[in-house]
């Protein structure tokens, strides 16, 4: 073996390198040149892709952590314990991307601490910012043993782990409540846009809508991430756990769908469902991706039990979820804003680079920490034989 090797140039490494290069330019554009150079945001469209994709989707897709933690610790569903650490890690990294994204979004990011001392309890955004702050702390604490247990000093290590064990249930309880609050309050942000948000999305129950859709989407993302770990990171997971998670996703999506349509009917907005316009097409795209297609697929045992099919189905759920959040935050507000917003490429690049950084961090955490059980290293006698994939 050579002492020092350059990392191999592979397809995915090239992609990640390109994303990072574009991300670095976006960072320069945003912080050295300003909003005007880095974004297509204008006064009628003050929130764009960074809020819609970075924050709304980032927080929503990170809902898996609290759902699995609550199931295991509070409901005693030990079945899901093997994927607990992974889902907490995904959520933690998800919230990290949201916090980094906040630096891009805020006009004056070095004042990000202001809400800690300057309170306005009438503001939904104030509640969201506090919940996100506290919940990111909770996630960091929930995940911390994975790092602490690697410490070589036995005494402080055990002391910390014992302390951690004693507060764990309180952490999970607080995490569940905080998540439930801000997942729904993210929808609550748009309650103030009455009369401007399209009737297919504006409802007094936006909060409930956001909460009900975040949990299945978060679980779907967790399944996708774990599948990818097993496929390429040489770790083991009992795939039947994933198929059990998918059995929970289906009724949750169905519940959201039913709630969505009952709400539409009760608000007399049925007429909008058949209008030939962009909003309605996007509405049906959202319903197809988030309800119809996943329900049909998840109803089949063949899909639930085949990890690859399951992965594909979860990808559809995640896309549907992203469509929903972008609809609420961007497309459903376009008509009333009077302008047509298309994000600048630097907006995409900044968000993608942040997500890519989280994926790289996730990769290294899985490889170097004890998140998922690893396959035993290949034995010498296996070297010439067919690579065994469990």
């Amino acid at each position, binding site marked *: 073996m050579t002492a020092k090797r350059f990392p191999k140039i592979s397809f995915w490494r090239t992609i990640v390198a390109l994303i990072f290069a574009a991300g670095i330019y976006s960072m320069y554009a945003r*912080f050295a040149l300003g909003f005007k150079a880095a974004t297509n945001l204008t006064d009628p469209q003050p929130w764009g892709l960074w809020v819609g994709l970075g924050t709304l989707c980032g927080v929503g897709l990170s809902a898996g952590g609290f759902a699995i933690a609550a199931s295991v610790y509070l409901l005693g569903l030990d079945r899901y314990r093997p994927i607990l650490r992974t889902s907490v890690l995904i959520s933690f990294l998800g919230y990290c991307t949201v916090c980094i994204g906040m630096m891009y979004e*805020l*006009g004056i990011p070095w004042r990000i601490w202001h809400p800690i001392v300057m309170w306005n309890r009438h503001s*939904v955004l*104030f*509640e969201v910012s506090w919940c996100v702050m506290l919940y990111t702390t909770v996630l960091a604490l929930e995940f911390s043993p994975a790092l602490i247990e690697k410490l070589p000093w036995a005494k402080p290590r055990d002391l910390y782990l014992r302390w951690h064990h004693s507060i764990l249930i309180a952490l999970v309880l607080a995490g*569940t*409540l905080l998540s439930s609050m801000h997942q729904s*309050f993210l929808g609550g942000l748009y309650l103030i846009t009455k009369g401007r948000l399209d009737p297919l999305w504006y409802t007094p129950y936006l909060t409930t809508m956001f909460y009900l859709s975040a949990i299945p989407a978060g679980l779907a993302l967790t399944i996708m991430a774990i599948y990818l770990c097993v496929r390429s990171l040489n770790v083991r997971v009992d795939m039947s756990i994933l198929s059990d998670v998918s059995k929970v996703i289906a009724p949750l999506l169905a519940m959201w769908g039913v709630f969505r349509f009952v709400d539409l009917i009760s608000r007399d907005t049925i007429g909008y469902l058949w209008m030939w316009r962009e909003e309605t097409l996007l509405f049906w795209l959202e319903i197809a991706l988030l309800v119809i297609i996943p329900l049909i697929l998840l109803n089949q045992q063949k899909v639930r039990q085949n990890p690859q099919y399951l992965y594909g189905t979860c990808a559809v759920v995640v896309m549907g979820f992203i469509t929903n959040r972008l609809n609420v935050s961007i497309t459903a507000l376009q008509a009333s804003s009077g302008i047509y917003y298309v994000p600048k490429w630097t907006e995409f690049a900044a968000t993608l680079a942040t997500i890519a950084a989280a994926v790289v961090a996730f990769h290294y955490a899985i490889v170097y920490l004890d998140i998922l059980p690893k396959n035993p290293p290949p034995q010498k006698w296996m070297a010439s034989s067919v690579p065994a994939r469990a």
Partner: protein
Amino acid sequence: MATTRGILVDITKCIGCRSCEQGCKQIHGFPTDTELKLSTTALTIVEEHGDRFVRRMCMHCQDPACASACLVGALKKSGAGPVTYDAGKCIGCRYCLVACPFSVPRYEWTKLVPYVKKCDMCAERQAKGQLPACVEACPVQASISGTREEILAEAQRRILNDSKYVKRIYGSEEAGGTSVFFISDVPFEKLGFAAPPKQPLPLLTASALGDGPTVILVGGALLSGLYWITQRRALVALAEAREKSAKEGS
């Protein structure tokens, strides 16, 4: 709130001279070129709609959406009427731009330390007993200012005594009522006026926020209860297993 100040704009009197624009730009030290839309350097402008001239500016709502939205409380409704902005608090989240039903606040997109810009009804001047700059500049008194009650009564008097007016005071009930009012002889819909909901917009979010404590109390109790049951079942299962093994052992 008896001393709350307000502004009345009578569209029938406006001659489109743009003195109000200039007066506003002068006291703020903005470049004096005429602008067609509200901007960070034009906090009030005069729009042309057919042969009518319509001033646009912050409406200074009685219960402002922007102030309820601002998470650090940089935007506030002062007791004297104006909705003011404290740039020292602002973190640049721009939720006020999202929240405003009249699309008034403007953001300094080109700056590296950007702030929100909007009319503050010359709060400082009014506190010293002076008129707002735009009102002072108006040569034909199309804009007048006074206490909210006074100018509402004046608007009422004008539309009742003269049949040319549309029988409506724009601002009296929009977004729950504002401190800037318009009266006109042309329907407001034809003059590009927004049609916001009639209730104060902060009420829409207040009901959701009000659920917060309930979620914590009920949710907390529910989850603690579930945890207790989970624990109890584990203990019972353990005890049963022990009993069983003890019996088998004897």
